[in-house]
């Protein structure tokens, strides 16, 4: 029960078999000593590795963060107070979860190009709420030159983020070809 489910499903029987073999060779006391030490070392490591591999959850987090930022900005532009809550929330999520977001873009079997594109998309997506927050003071009731420039910049970054994201996920994963 201590190990991640996929590890238990795949190697549970082998672990029991090996413990049985160890007990037969070393005696139950020494076998359990070795297994206990092994548990202390491996349980946190395998749990951590499983958490770090949950890239799909992280990808959903990226989409949710960008969606929150977009919804917040649109709300503010059409005069709904919901944007006041959504935009800072998106920024907080992007900042506090940046480690998880970055890890999701660094999968083991992805090609270098794919990783690079997804990483750029992530950085751009995370900068969206920041750009909006920075440009808040210059956004007034009327559209001035500064507001148009800020909105144009934000839109350009959004388009670039979406483009990099789409090109990243459509880049084929690299495969190791045996010699």
């Amino acid at each position, binding site marked *: 029960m201590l*190990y991640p489910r996929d*590890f238990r499903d*795949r*190697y549970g*029987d*082998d*672990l029991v*078999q*090996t*413990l049985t*073999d*160890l007990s037969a060779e070393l005696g139950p006391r020494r076998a359990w000593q*070795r*297994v206990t*030490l*092994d*548990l202390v*070392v*491996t*349980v946190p*490591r*395998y749990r951590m590795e499983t958490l770090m591999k949950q890239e799909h959850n992280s990808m959903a987090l990226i989409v949710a963060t960008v969606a929150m930022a977009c919804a917040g900005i649109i709300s503010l532009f059409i005069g709904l107070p919901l944007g006041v809550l959504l935009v800072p929330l998106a920024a907080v999520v992007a900042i506090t979860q940046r480690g998880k977001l970055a890890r999701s873009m660094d999968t083991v079997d992805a090609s270098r190009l794919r990783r690079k594109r997804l990483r750029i998309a992530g950085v751009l997506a995370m900068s969206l709420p920041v750009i909006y927050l920075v440009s808040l003071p210059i956004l007034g009731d009327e559209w001035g030159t500064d507001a148009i420039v800020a909105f144009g910049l934000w839109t350009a970054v959004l388009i670039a983020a979406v483009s990099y994201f789409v090109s990243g996920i459509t880049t084929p994963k690299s495969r*190791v070809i*045996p*010699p």
Partner: protein
Amino acid sequence: MALTAGDRHGYAIMGAVEESSSGVVRMGPATLYGTLKKLVERDLVEESDRRPSSNDDERRRYYRLTGLGQAVCQAESNRLSTLVSIANSNLRPGLA
């Protein structure tokens, strides 16, 4: 490296590692199978259907090196050998 001698099951791999390291490396079961899992995922090791003896326990799973795994073992062996040569020549320049 323990699989370069041939197909082995998990407990035999543990024994081979301990023996070849003169007891310095003593793997636990979870360390062993965690390592095997990673090697299988990276296509360096695969499960084997062959049984060295017919009276062996059917439940035991045997593992063997893939072609890529053998190539990686060879490359790692060469790399370590080169490192040892460099270290020897630096430490004992007159003898190298």
